[in-house]
Structures are given as structure tokens and as C-alpha cells.
């Protein structure tokens, strides 16, 4: 069955943070390159934190992931990190890991192309988000405002490489050597270590008993 793709990106932060320049191209490059059904593309003021959040979780408890982030196989966010949005009038403008529960719907993979989403510790921070999700791709350190990392990642995914290799190579090609990429996958009861985008749709790992976080230099 064909896989579904969703992207959200933010360049305009309306003074909540400094504006960015390339997140539209970065996310759209991923969207247009990756094989699959293009389900949603929300940018700037149309990108909302609630699109990633579980209804009733967190404070404020708004959330609509069942219609958006958790209604596609892979969702890609490009903006300020972790997941900071340009508008805060739907919830609080920040999709925190504790408010996100992905995979109890359709989502299997989360890409967070922003600064420091996996700083400190990967697994403890993001464990609440893994409710069926199989893997997540992000950064440990700050990153530059790349305009084509998403496209490069999609190219390697389409070529049938392991998903973590695809992320590592895309990061190598778009960052200096001091930047550190991060990757979390489920370890048990099912390991998603060998997942490829080109494989048939995998099952959700509903209650992962352990996760594994990897990091390495770009």
C-alpha cells in the first residue's frame, strides 16, 4: 500500500524567534522527492503545534494529530527546534515530546529538522512520543538553515537504503563536521533498526519496551 507523506515548515516566527529562510524549500524538497502520496503541506501560519499533538495530552491539551501528523506514514518538520511554531494561538506554539503520541494512528516515522531536538538525552525525552512510531530523525546540536537536506534524505530513502544511513548521509552533505545528527529507533519487542522506506508498510510498535538512540558527527 502506498505510503503517505506530510510536511510542516516555518520561516516566519512573528518575533517569537528569529525568522528563517529555507525551511519551505527544505521541507518541500522532501515532499516532492519522496515516493508516496502527498497528503499535507502546511507552512508558516498554517503549521500548528496541535497538528503534532495528541488530543487531551499536555497543557493546554489541544491536539489534532489524528488528522495530520498521525495520519501519514512519515511526517517532516522543518523550523526552529525542537518543534517551535510561528503561531501560538492554537495551543502554545510548541509541540513538546510529552504532548506528542505518534503511531497510535498511522505515523511510523518522525523527522525533526531543527536544532537540538535530541540534545541531552534522546530516549528519555522522546519515549512518550513513541506510541507506535518506529523511528525518529533529528539533531543533537544546532544546525544550519539548510534548503536541501530534505530532498537529499528523500533521494536516499527512495534508493532503498536503511533509513538511518539515508539521514546520516543527508546530514553529512549539508552540515559542517561539528554538527551531530541523532536517530532513535525501537529496539524491543520489535527492532526497527533495519527499516527501509521502500519496504512494505511496517506495523506499529505500540508499546516499545526499549528504544535505542544513536548519534554521530555530520
Amino acid at each position: 500500500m502506498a505510503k503517505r507523506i506530510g510536511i510542516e515548515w516555518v520561516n516566519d516566527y512573528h518575533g517569537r524567534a528569529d525568522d528563517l529562510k529555507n525551511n519551505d524549500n527544505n521541507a518541500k524538497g522532501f515532499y516532492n522527492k519522496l515516493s508516496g502520496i502527498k497528503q499535507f503541506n502546511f507552512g508558516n501560519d498554517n503549521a500548528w503545534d496541535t497538528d503534532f499533538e495528541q488530543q487531551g495530552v499536555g497543557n493546554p491539551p489541544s491536539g489534532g494529530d489524528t488528522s495530520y501528523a498521525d495520519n501519514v506514514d512519515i511526517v517532516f518538520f522543518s523550523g526552529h527546534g525542537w518543534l517551535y511554531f510561528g503561531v501560538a494561538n492554537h495551543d502554545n506554539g510548541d509541540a513538546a515530546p510529552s504532548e506528542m503520541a505518534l503511531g497510535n494512528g498511522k505515523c511510523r516515522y518522525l523527522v525533526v529538522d531543527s536544532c537540538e531536538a535530541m540534545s541531552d538525552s534522546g530516549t528519555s525525552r522522546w519515549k512518550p512520543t513513541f506510541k507506535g512510531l518506529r523511528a525518529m530523525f533529528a539533531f543533537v546540536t544546532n544546525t544550519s538553515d539548510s534548503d536541501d537536506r530534505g530532498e537529499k534524505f528523500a533521494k536516499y530513502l527512495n534508493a532503498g537504503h536503511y533509513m538511518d544511513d539515508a539521514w546520516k548521509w543527508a546530514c553529512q552533505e549539508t552540515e559542517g563536521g561539528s554538527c551531530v545528527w541523532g536517530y532513535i529507533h525501537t529496539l524491543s519487542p520489535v527492532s526497527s533498526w533495519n527499516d527501509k522506506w521502500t519496504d512494505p508498510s511496517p506495523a506499529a510498535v505500540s508499546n516499545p519496551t526499549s528504544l535505542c538512540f544513536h548519534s554521530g558527527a555530520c
Partner: protein
Amino acid sequence: MSISLEFPRKIEGHVEQVPMFLTPIREPDLKQMQVLARVFKMKGDVIDEGDLYSIRTQDAILHQFHASDSIRWDSGMKRSEHYKEVLKITDLKELQAIADRFLGANKLLDKRASFSHIIFGKAETSGPASDISKNVNTCAYVNYTYSLAGLPLLGPGAKIQVIIGFDGNVVGCYRFWREVKEGGLSKKVLSSPDIQKIFRENPAFAQIKSGKVVVEMARLGYMTLPPSDVQGALIPVIELRGFVSTPEIKRTGFIRSLVAIDYTEEELKRYNVFNKHFSGSCRIM
């Protein structure tokens, strides 16, 4: 408006004039790819993937990029459960020596590149699986950076990395580089006050009404593009690293580059960097 801007007293490496380096357009080189295949003992068909040649085997891949003199070899695709394995070598000098030997043996050493730093690859597991270490170093990334005319080459397009696996064997490497030739031209570098003025007037910060912008590090270097991109010249830039803090978001980091020279419209096109990365009069990426 109450926004404060902190800028470092000194821009690292700042000089008055810098030489320009051109980076001639390169043609895809199948013969070179075949030489590389022998060096890395890669057997298989060479595939033209559009922006690079590749050879792919069960557990390794070799890439040669068309637009630059960049290569990557990665044999880390043996999908063993290596997150259980702890890196046996922890001595930094020993790791560097292994990387140096590997680069020398494979003719990847370059006098313009020098050892920079080592970052350990980590694996951290959570959960009840008691046979798995909690947080371990699994491999080492030994990094090298390039410099020209005493200035660092910044961005993704000029760097070398050797990846050393848990057992001390090299499991991957890349060398991202594009050959340069001196353009016979030097350019005046903007003064520090001018750089600060341009940064202060950057539209990216215009909407921030309250908070602070802190530039923690500023350094002069040459911008390099991704290995798959054609680049006409190495552009002198000031790389700025820092963070923004506002009442709404406590901290967001940034890495920005500011073109450090004046340029003409003709140079905009000829150097083939600005179009994509620095649009028109906007000097900051």
C-alpha cells in the same frame, strides 16, 4: 522595542584582504570512480544516480559526486547489533593515528587538511532489556578540516571524516572537497563595525520586539556548498553562531553566514553561490 544584541569583541581570523579561490566546474569522471572502486575493494556495477556514481554491495557503498571531487565509502551497513558493542579504543591519539594511517594508505591525505576533532558515536538504550548497555560509545568519528590562506573552509563541502568501529577497524570515511585555483584576485573584507551593522539590520531579527540576540562566535572563512552542488568560487563569509532568546521561546540556536566582501552583479552570477544561498542584496544565509 527592547532587544539587545551581543557580539563578540573579536572576529576570529579577521583580515583586511583575502585571496579569492575559483572552483572550476568538474565533469563526471567514470575512470576515477573505477580507481576508487579498486582502492576500496568494491566490486559491482557503477550506477549513475544523477548527481553521483555509486557502487553498492550487500554491506557497503561507494559514492563519487559529479559536481565536486568528493567521495564517500561506508561499510557500516552490516546490520549487526553493534549498539551492544563498546568502542575498545578510547585514546584520542590512537584513534587519530588509525585515521591518519587509513587516509595515507588510501591516498586521501591532503596537506590542506588537518586533524580537527573526534566525536564519539553513541548508543543509548532505555527499557528493561538487561543485556544491553545503557549508554556506550560505539564508534569514533575522526574529523579533519581544510584551510586555505590561513582561513578555515566552512560549510559541508570541505571536510574529511574517518569512522572507526568498535573493534578499531575503519568502517567508513568521506572526503568532501572541490579542487580550487587561485583567482588572481583579492577582495577587501568588510570591517568589523560594518559586519555588525549588517547583522543588526538583518530582516530575520526585525520582528523580535523583546529579548536578546547573542552571537557567541564569529569567524572569517570560506563558504563551501554541499558536494553535489556546483560552486564557482569559495566565498569569504563570516560564520556566526549564537542564540536568540525571547519571552515566548527561551532559546533557539542559529548558525548563519554573512558574505564578508563586496561583490558585483557579474560576480553574483559567475561565483554561482549567491543565487541559491544569498539572494540579491541579502548577505546573510
